[in-house]
């Protein structure tokens, strides 16, 4: 047989692999991707971003940059022995592209109004060095805020100057720990790399990585999970009784064997777990219980040693919660306040304003459903060797137990998604890499690339969709700082819409901040902002002689995007005449009025 005949008979997949092996586009794709992304970002204009978000108004360079990063990642992954440094470079590039875009185009001003509340706690700790507002739930769970206040104090910089970069920092750290945990659970490191890549896409929309206790607690949980799975797994053959041993043997078939450990290592691991868990407990209200669900599921199937590990963890959580239970009760109606899982899973609001909000919500709902369904499919596919997926399956689905107890102010489902996502990503990655394809149909890697791109762009629509609402301009931040610097302490500050960077000052608790009860997303909405007489009566009833009323670009964007509060525009136009508001501050994006009552 001639060489030509031979080459004609070689399967297309082999020929493609051979060609790719020689050309190796993956060596330049990360650089092309990052270069295109960086150029694309310089061409983005925040003012041009509409209701459908950043992706809808992005240029081709921005999109091609992301595609090139995914393409480089998948092409390298397709090699029989992929180079770790190149996959890592692609992943770092991807995380940077996802999470550095918004801080760059916003000039480093943090996203999300609630980040400024966190900055306020940090500033108060850094300034006063103690808890100044014991009735504030954030003050009672101070671990993250105290740590950032320490960093801020040591560097003599305000946390506002670096808060915008928290998502990038948290995601890079999460990716590092996730890769480590995944390597414990799978033999093929390609699965671990692919899982991290998928995770960065499917998690992008949930927005839980800003400067917040839950982002910090999640990072620590990943470290805790590593310690537990590396040093505290039950030895393979050990079980309490013969019957349990038989049942366990069936469940652990195919499981990666537990690493050999010494008594000293286990002791050190226990101390580490207890210390990390205590800090998680002191940082965030809900995370400790999601962790208890995961550790409880592993304990129930006799996969951990010591078997009593759950007890000290529960004791730490309970002991910390008991003296603060009143705050949980007043904020969330108690620990087991909502026993309706379906209602708890519906999120912070069940209806969506037609247009950008509804489309973005629909996309992320499909993404979440696909994630859980594919993960479930991966488990069912491995039902004969369920041990190979048992640990990720338990950790993926145990967070759902939280929905049986709490809605967490409508936020529980997002935390459940966050805690479920890493393990779902691992299950899906395993499923994709094990798919059997016909030899003459080389679509495995194109399919993986399509799945990665679909997850990434769906996640990015969720992340970037509401960016015109979530992002603030420098001038809005300056206006807020002016307000806290010039309004006398004890003043009443009134917001027609809560989407404004308030409470960022160290003495935030010295002011009476009120948001008009006219947004159904924030609870009972009975005040019609379009009726100035009602607004005036409501403000007067708050009992101050003077009030500072703030209106801004971000409030207008919020009211437009969510369709509420409905009377916002009318109120803005009538403040000077009907409410006799005197302008005390005005810039391009914000106006602050002083209202005086007899």
């Amino acid at each position: 047989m001639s060489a030509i005949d031979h080459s004609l008979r070689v399967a297309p997949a082999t020929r493609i692999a051979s060609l790719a092996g020689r050309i190796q586009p993956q060596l330049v794709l990360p650089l092309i991707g990052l270069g295109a992304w960086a150029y694309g970002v310089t061409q983005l204009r925040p003012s041009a971003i509409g209701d459908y978000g950043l992706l809808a108004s992005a240029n081709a360079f921005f999109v091609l940059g992301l595609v090139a990063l995914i393409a480089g990642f998948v092409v390298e992954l397709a090699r029989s022995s992929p180079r770790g440094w190149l996959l890592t470079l692609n992943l770092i590039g991807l995380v940077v592209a996802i999470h550095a875009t918004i801080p760059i185009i916003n000039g480093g001003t943090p996203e999300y109004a609630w980040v400024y509340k966190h900055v306020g706690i940090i500033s108060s700790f850094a300034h006063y060095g103690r808890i100044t507002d014991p009735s504030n739930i954030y003050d009672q769970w101070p671990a993250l805020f105290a740590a950032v206040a320490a960093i801020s104090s040591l560097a003599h910089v305000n946390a506002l100057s670096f808060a915008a970069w928290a998502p990038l920092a948290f995601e890079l750290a999460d990716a590092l720990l996730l890769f480590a945990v995944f390597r414990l659970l799978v033999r093929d490191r390609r699965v671990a790399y692919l899982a991290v890549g998928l995770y960065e896409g499917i998690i992008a929309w949930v927005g839980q990585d800003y400067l917040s206790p839950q982002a910090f607690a999640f990072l620590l949980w990943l470290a805790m999970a590593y310690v537990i799975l590396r040093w505290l797994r039950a030895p393979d053959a050990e079980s309490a009784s013969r019957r349990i041993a038989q049942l366990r043997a069936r469940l652990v078939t195919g499981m990666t064997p537990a690493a050999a450990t010494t008594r000293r290592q286990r002791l050190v691991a226990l101390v580490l777990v207890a210390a990390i868990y205590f800090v998680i407990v002191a940082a965030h209200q809900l995370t400790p219980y999601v962790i208890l669900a995961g550790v409880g599921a592993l304990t129930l199937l006799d996969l951990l040693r010591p078997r009593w590990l759950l007890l000290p963890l529960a004791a730490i959580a309970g002991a910390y919660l008991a003296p603060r239970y009143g705050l949980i009760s007043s904020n969330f109606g108690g620990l087991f306040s909502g026993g309706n899982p379906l209602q708890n899973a519906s999120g912070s609001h069940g209806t969506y304003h037609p247009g950008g909000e509804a489309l973005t919500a629909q996309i992320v709902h499909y993404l979440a459903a696909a994630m859980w369904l594919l993960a479930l499919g991966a488990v069912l596919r491995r039902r004969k060797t369920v041990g190979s997926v048992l640990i990720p399956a338990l950790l993926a689905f145990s967070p759902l137990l939280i929905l049986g107890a709490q809605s967490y102010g409508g936020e529980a489902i997002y935390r459940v998604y966050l805690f479920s996502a890493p393990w779902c990503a691992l299950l899906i990655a395993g499923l994709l890499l094990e798919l059997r394809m016909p030899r003459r149909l080389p679509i495995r890697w194109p399919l993986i690339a399509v799945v990665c791109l679909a997850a990434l762009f769906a996640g990015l629509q969720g992340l970037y969709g509401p960016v015109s609402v979530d992002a603030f301009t420098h001038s809005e931040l300056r206006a807020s700082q002016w307000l806290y610097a010039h309004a006398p302490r004890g003043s009443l500050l009134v917001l027609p819409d809560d989407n404004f960077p308030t409470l960022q000052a160290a003495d935030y608790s010295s002011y009476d901040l009120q948001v008009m009860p006219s947004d159904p997303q924030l609870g009972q909405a009975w005040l019609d902002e379009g009726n100035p007489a009602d607004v005036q009566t409501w403000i007067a009833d708050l009992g101050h002689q003077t009030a500072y009323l703030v209106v801004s670009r971000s409030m207008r964007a919020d009211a437009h995007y969510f369709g509420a509060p409905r009377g916002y525009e009318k109120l803005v136009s009538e403040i000077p005449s009907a409410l006799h508001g005197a302008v005390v501050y005005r810039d391009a994006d914000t106006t602050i009025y002083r209202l005086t009552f007899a």
Partner: protein
Amino acid sequence: MSRTRSELTAYAGLSSSILAVALVLGAPTPWLGLIGALVLACVPAGAAVMCWIDAGENAAQAGLTLAVSLTILALASAIMIWLSAWQPRALLVLAGAAVISCALRLRVARRAGAPR
């Protein structure tokens, strides 16, 4: 124990401690001071612990060093807040402790590797 991995952690602990203290105490600009504070938050305390433990994987060693550092920093800072004894500069003690622990670790490693 993989000597290389834990010894590298000890070297990282030593160098980051010195860098962090130098930047926090002597940085000419707040941004350099911020880098020093972040280094102090992310490396020395974790390295002081992890230089004695081999996590079995480079990513895990680095990740646990980071997480343990943040844990210790958060714990120490929260205790200062709870006790109303706010002295952030006292956290530089973490760098000192890291220098001692990491130097000790390297000394033990050198003794173990020295010919008898």
